[in-house]
């Protein structure tokens, strides 16, 4: 069965090189296909945040976070293998230490809920404009650097 997932990686601006992002994209696809089958496809959205916009324990942080949805009701053993394989990819390719990366392998339905909440915080009148702005950014970055990139700031 063909499965497709939208993965969201939030990283601090300029913390990862183009090469690192490309390598990570390749590894993440392998991580997905190893666990969920070779027909699995993913789309990765890189959301950057400027310095001074993320905090952990009350202090500024540059730690990346990743939302990597999985099929609903994936059993925990499979989910754990998947989570640790993604972590291994981050640690090997990004230069981050394993205790700096936060990864969520949420059920697809919860990931959808998160995305919906994200959209619904915007005024319904201005939502089409916001979507157009984000889509324009994503298309531009796809053309310029070959990846889907945007910013946490709209």
């Amino acid at each position: 069965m063909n499965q497709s997932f939208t993965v969201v990686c939030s990283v601090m601006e300029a913390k990862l090189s183009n090469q690192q992002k490309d390598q990570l994209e390749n590894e993440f696809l392998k991580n997905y296909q190893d666990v969920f089958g070779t027909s699995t496809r993913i789309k990765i959205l890189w959301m950057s945040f400027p310095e001074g916009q993320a905090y952990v324990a009350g202090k500024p942080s540059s730690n990346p976070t990743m939302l990597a949805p999985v099929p609903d009701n994936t059993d925990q053993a499979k989910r754990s293998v998947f989570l640790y394989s993604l972590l291994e990819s981050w640690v090997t390719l990004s230069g981050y230490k394993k205790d700096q990366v936060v990864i969520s392998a949420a059920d697809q339905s919860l990931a959808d809920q998160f995305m919906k909440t994200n959209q619904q915080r915007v005024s319904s009148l201005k939502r089409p404009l916001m979507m157009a702005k984000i889509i324009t950014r994503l298309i531009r970055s796809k053309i310029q650097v070959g990846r889907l990139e945007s910013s946490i700031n709209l």
Partner: protein
Amino acid sequence: MPLYTVSTKTNLSPQHKNEIVCAITEIHCQLTGAPADFVQVVFSFGVSLPKQFDAHVTGSIRSGRTQEVKAELTEKICSAIANALNSERHKIESVLLDVPAKWVIEGGEIMPQPGEEDEWYEQLSTH
């Protein structure tokens, strides 16, 4: 996790951000007993919020908190944000999403269930 994303229409000053980050971290830890190391706060600026709101906060928290705790989290965090922004409580919108702890890896390991943090830290220190 928790991860709180605070969205506003315009950029916030470092002082405002600091005040909000400290308040969210303190409130979450006091009400849930979670360690401060777990609490993440991220700001998203330039968001066209509905006219009646000055800020929106989405909190992804570990599943297992009672409705009472969640109601208190919402109330106190929204009030703290309103206070920091010189706004009013009803102008801060919030959504809390429950995420099972075992679906998340943080600190290099699968997250502990709420209340099992001490054992988790102990396990981390032996790795």
